[in-house]
């Protein structure tokens, strides 16, 4: 299973690789991925790669990702080339109209790409007082619910719990559920 996770520096996308890594480790599966640290983290486009299975390279080759998880819809669209034909995009959207663009729709159709969208900002505004730092947990929940991976909710919940400070335990659980149900 090959994941590409994209977003804007500061959105907390590294957390998702950690969650995937933890799950792989607990399953006893081999895993390797690549992250972005440094200059690009300052508000620029960021891309993480994560591969679970028998791989040696940390990088996903364009055209081979099973899942593209996008914290930002612009970054998601820009990185669609990473997906294999028939792959899935799980995306946080803030402007639905973009997904009505005829060229985009035709491209998605041609390549058989399935889109699972979540209105992350709206949900967090409504339920979490607009704290957008929970986006990573919300999207983990949504990705889990979309059925594009073999991740079980409990597995994700356990990883999120172990990877974050205890004071966020309740909030994270709530947000994860929110993402799961939003789908």
């Amino acid at each position, binding site marked *: 299973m090959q994941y590409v996770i994209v977003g*804007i*520096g*500061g959105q907390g996308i590294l957390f998702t*690789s*950690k969650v995937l*890594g*933890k799950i*792989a*480790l*607990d399953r*006893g599966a*081999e*895993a*390797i*991925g*690549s*992250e*972005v*640290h*440094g*200059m*690009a*983290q*300052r*508000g*620029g*486009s960021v891309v993480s790669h*994560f591969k679970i299975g028998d*791989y*040696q*390279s*940390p*990088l*996903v*080759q*364009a*055209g*081979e990702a099973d899942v593209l998880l996008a914290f930002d819809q*612009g*970054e998601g*669209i*820009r990185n*669609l*080339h*990473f997906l*294999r*034909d028939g792959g899935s995009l799980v995306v946080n959207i*803030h402007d639905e109209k*973009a997904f009505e*663009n005829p*060229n*985009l729709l*035709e*491209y998605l159709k*041609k*390549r058989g790409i399935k889109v699972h969208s979540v209105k992350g*900002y709206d949900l967090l505004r409504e339920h979490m007082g607009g704290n*957008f730092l929970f986006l990573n947990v919300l999207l983990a929940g949504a990705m889990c619910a979309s059925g594009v991976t073999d991740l079980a909710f409990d597995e994700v919940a356990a990883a999120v719990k*172990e*990877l974050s400070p205890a004071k966020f335990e309740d909030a994270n659980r709530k947000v994860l559920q929110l993402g799961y149900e939003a789908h």
Partner: protein
Amino acid sequence: MMEVFHTVSTKAILLGNEAIARGIVESGCLVATAYPGTPSSEILPAVAKFADELASPMAVEWGVNEKVAFEMALAASFTGVRSCAVMKQVGLNVAADPFMSAAHFDLKGGMLLVTADDPGPHSSQTEQDSRYFAMFAKVPCFDPATGAEAKEMVFDAFDLSERFGIITMLRPSVRVNHCRQSVDLGEIRTRDEEAKFVKEPSRWVCLPASVKVNHPRLNRKVEDIRTAFETEFSKYNYEVPAKKESVLGIVASGVSFSVVMDMLKGWGREDVSVLKIGTPHPLPLKMVTEFMARQPKVLFLEETYPVMELQLPDRTGILGRWNGVVPGAGELLPEVIASILAPLLGREAGPGGEDPLLKQALEDLKVTPRRPMLCPGCPHRASFFSIRQALPNAVNPSDIGCYTLGVNQKAVDAVVDMGASVTMGSGFYLAHKASGTERPVVSTIGDSTFFHMGLPGLASAVYNRHSFVLAILDNSTTAMTGGQANPSVGTKLRKGDEGRKVDIEGACRGCGVTFVKTLEAYDVRKGKEVIAEAWEYARERREPAVVIFRHPCMLLRPEQSSIPVRVDPGKCIGCKFCINFFNCPGLVFNEETKKAFIDERFCVSCGVCVSVCPHGAIEAVQEEGR
């Protein structure tokens, strides 16, 4: 910021840098030093964390720059203990002087130099290949293909260093530093060496006379190490033979090897032989030439310079950089390697190429890659606004740090390397002076960079009487590289280790600067005033003036008042002044309404932009919501 490590028995998922750190601690290293720099920055904090966990007595310290860090580690090796210095590739330029000397010594304690390369580059001002530096210094180099392998190489690099009395280099590249992978965890391999410096001037004083002995000895060491690499290091240098008759041989090192292996597997190709080289210098020549002799054609893949290629007695027979088959710059991403390999293997590179439909959609939707920007609330943004508004005609040399992004605010005109903001200030002043003209100069430098290499330039400017303003942007951290401490912060890495804060104002005064003023960076009215005053002082007195803009970095999550703001569409005339000179992710322009607005996804309510709009269109709002 350290994170929790997740262990199941003796395996953990670690960042490549954490894996290297674990190797350093397990090796029984006693002195580890570094100066931060992407992609190496996470190594030293992880060394400190593992050292705490495993109760190692080792010293773990940031040097104020790479030369300082390197020399601390080198002297430790003179005493017989294991030591290690960590830096990014351009850091080695700064430490080049001691590195070149170090190669000539017959070292006592094992010394490891970790230099992290950044093909791409992702976060660097050059794309240089540190293996070339190893070759230049005649020092052995390990080139890991994964984080797990990098950890293993740390042990061998220390052993090799002690066996041959030579400094060794571990050269991970960014994809190794920042890979995340499961890695075996071990205990400290105990060693009983303790610091015992024996006075031996002929060994430890690098006089020209000793070079006459040391250089030939170094040459002999290189040949002996080459032999060792040929015969004893099959875990790093090995052939993955083709299952069928080979149509192509690939000699690959570093991450390129990993990429090639996944690609051949994905393509189901069993007719390609791969020779993995984990020790590119000195190159195990016999092994390579024998492999080459068995292949119909041979491709060399390595990042980023042709280091292996150049060590071949004759490279005209191979496919590589010398004949342009492999690009001479840029990262060897899977897509690049696919485009090299596919034609050689008579197949398509596969999906994932540019698609006209997607291209059109991106154009329709105006989606472009996002460039890095200063964070919302970043104090540097306010400082740059003050500086630029105070003296719009000034030349603004700047430096290496988050504040290089002041280029987005048209407040950064030239950046070279760490410390050059100060020395360029001198250079700009001198060029104008010698031409009989005058132009204000305001240089900007961060707190970490000031201590790294700003001080010598400042002393020189005072001594030579250069008129310019040096603005020190003190955000109490080394932000660009992830928030490491530095002398202006004063904290240290290991639990219970106490440091001491070095006062920036005092350091400037100590260099002889007589105008030193400190102010709150968010106060842009005051900032403009003080910058103008400082320049007047500098030009009249013919000496540099220092202004210190102080406010903690947003990554430190400082407690500060929250001032939610809104843009009054009635007052906004759409001039884009705020976009051009303030440039905040939280303040954006709506091309349809031709008005600025607050993007609440990013705004952190720092309130600074209220003082920015010349038309008073940005206002603080009292109630919740905007």
